[in-house]
């Protein structure tokens, strides 16, 4: 796939369709991959990469990139196309300035999970019939493939590209909530008692170091001025000084993207403290689906977002008090 992508990128650069390409660039280690913009065929030959570790969602970069001169080529995985579509809908991305090439999605791998097995000095990985062969500095190691999959890919919601100008590979399908099991953990928490839920979240959120990575990576968080950067917000500290700040930051972060979050799972992927932040977003998605009808953000560019809309027969907030475990 990487070769086909490089050829496609070079071809589009050569015929002048685009003048830049956004993709991924290899870092110091094979798993240390970062999104990057390429301007020439030489740069692409030297650094362009698309493999098991290119999990980063490049949609958010297009907010700025699509406002520059000329067209940019973007390689988007199925989950990235949802974020892209959502940003187009919010008029954040200038659609005409982006040439979207859909590429097959994951599952992508989590280097941390491989390292957790005590495997270090990773030089390369290869999947052979469910076994992950890892080439390391100290010889070859193996581990079950499914144990190395990124958390966000384990509960993949769709293999379908919702927007593209061209597709490399085949068109996939949407995976139902039952099949993907993406709400299982939310449901499990809902069935706990309030005390247990409180203890669970205290344990998780108290790990937060307020690095703001979850906010910065989120393709739905694209405000130029963020409420958390306001010194008068009471939560602009570099480190949370009180448990309240942790709660407040995470409730508001998730709330500000409620109804717009496409569940791409980037927040949890980048969290250096491994806080399952996507659960907060999924709780909102699950509630919206239950209260206001099934809604998948980014699926189209025409429907109204659930929080931008209302129905005269909406349920009352007292529904929260009536259901579930207290």
């Amino acid at each position, binding site marked *: 796939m990487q070769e086909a992508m490089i050829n496609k990128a070079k071809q589009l650069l050569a015929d002048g369709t685009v003048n830049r390409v956004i993709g991924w660039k290899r870092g110091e280690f094979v798993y240390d991959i970062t999104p990057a913009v390429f301007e020439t065929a030489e740069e692409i030959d030297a650094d362009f990469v698309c493999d098991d570790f290119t999990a980063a969602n490049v949609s958010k970069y297009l907010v700025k990139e699509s406002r520059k001169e000329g067209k940019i080529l973007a390689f988007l995985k199925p989950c990235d196309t949802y974020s892209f579509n959502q940003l187009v809908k919010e008029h954040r991305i200038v659609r005409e300035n982006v040439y979207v090439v859909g590429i097959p999605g994951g599952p992508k791998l989590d280097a941390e999970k491989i390292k957790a097995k005590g495997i270090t000095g990773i030089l390369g990985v290869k999947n052979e019939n469910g076994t992950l062969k890892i080439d390391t500095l100290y010889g070859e190691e193996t581990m079950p493939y499914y144990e190395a999959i990124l958390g966000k890919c384990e509960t993949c919601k769709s293999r379908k590209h919702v927007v593209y100008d061209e597709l490399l590979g085949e068109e996939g399908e949407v995976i139902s909530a039952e099949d993907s099991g993406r709400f299982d953990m939310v449901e499990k928490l809902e069935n706990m008692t309030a005390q247990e839920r*409180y203890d669970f979240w205290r344990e998780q959120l108290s790990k937060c170091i307020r690095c703001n990575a979850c906010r910065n990576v989120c393709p739905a968080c694209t405000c130029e001025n963020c409420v958390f950067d306001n010194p008068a917000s009471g939560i602009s500290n570099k480190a949370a000084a009180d448990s309240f700040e942790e709660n407040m930051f995470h409730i*508001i972060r998730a709330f500000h993207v*409620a109804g717009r979050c496409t569940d791409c799972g980037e927040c949890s992927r980048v969290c250096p403290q491994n806080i399952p932040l996507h659960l907060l977003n999924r709780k909102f998605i699950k*509630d919206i689906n239950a209260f206001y009808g099934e809604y998948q953000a980014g699926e189209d560019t025409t429907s109204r977002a*659930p929080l931008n809309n209302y*129905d005269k027969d909406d349920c009352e907030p007292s529904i*929260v*008090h009536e259901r579930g475990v207290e």
Partner: protein
Amino acid sequence: MQVNENTNFEPVIVAFCCNWCSYAGADLSGTNRLNYPTNVKIIRVPCSCRVNPMFILRAFQKGADGVILCGCHPGDCHYTSGNYFTRRRITLLYSMLDFLGIERDRTRLEWVSAAEGAKFAATMQEFTDAVRKLGPNRRLEDLRCRKQ
């Protein structure tokens, strides 16, 4: 007789009232000489829709033990549709607070019209009693703001 350890606990209740219905309802309950608990601190807002989720969290931070939001009945909003948006937003927020293990009885939303002075007084009485039973807010408090 059983002694309740919270006997002396007086909760702080923050009530966000919309200017057009609920605030007038509170006013009516006053002119009608109806009693409602002095624990309730009313904050007047132009519309229930003005209430940002952060307002509610900040109220808890600054020492509220319960937060109640009052607005016009759905369909009666002075701004036509404000309270419909409030309803969606607040349902999700309360659900999230519940998900994080915050006691669900600390939050409430009630529609009170300008003619419902009696309902206002009764709702406040009932809500204050419910929060008094729960005790002080410990799960969503800011220790730095705690009164000595």
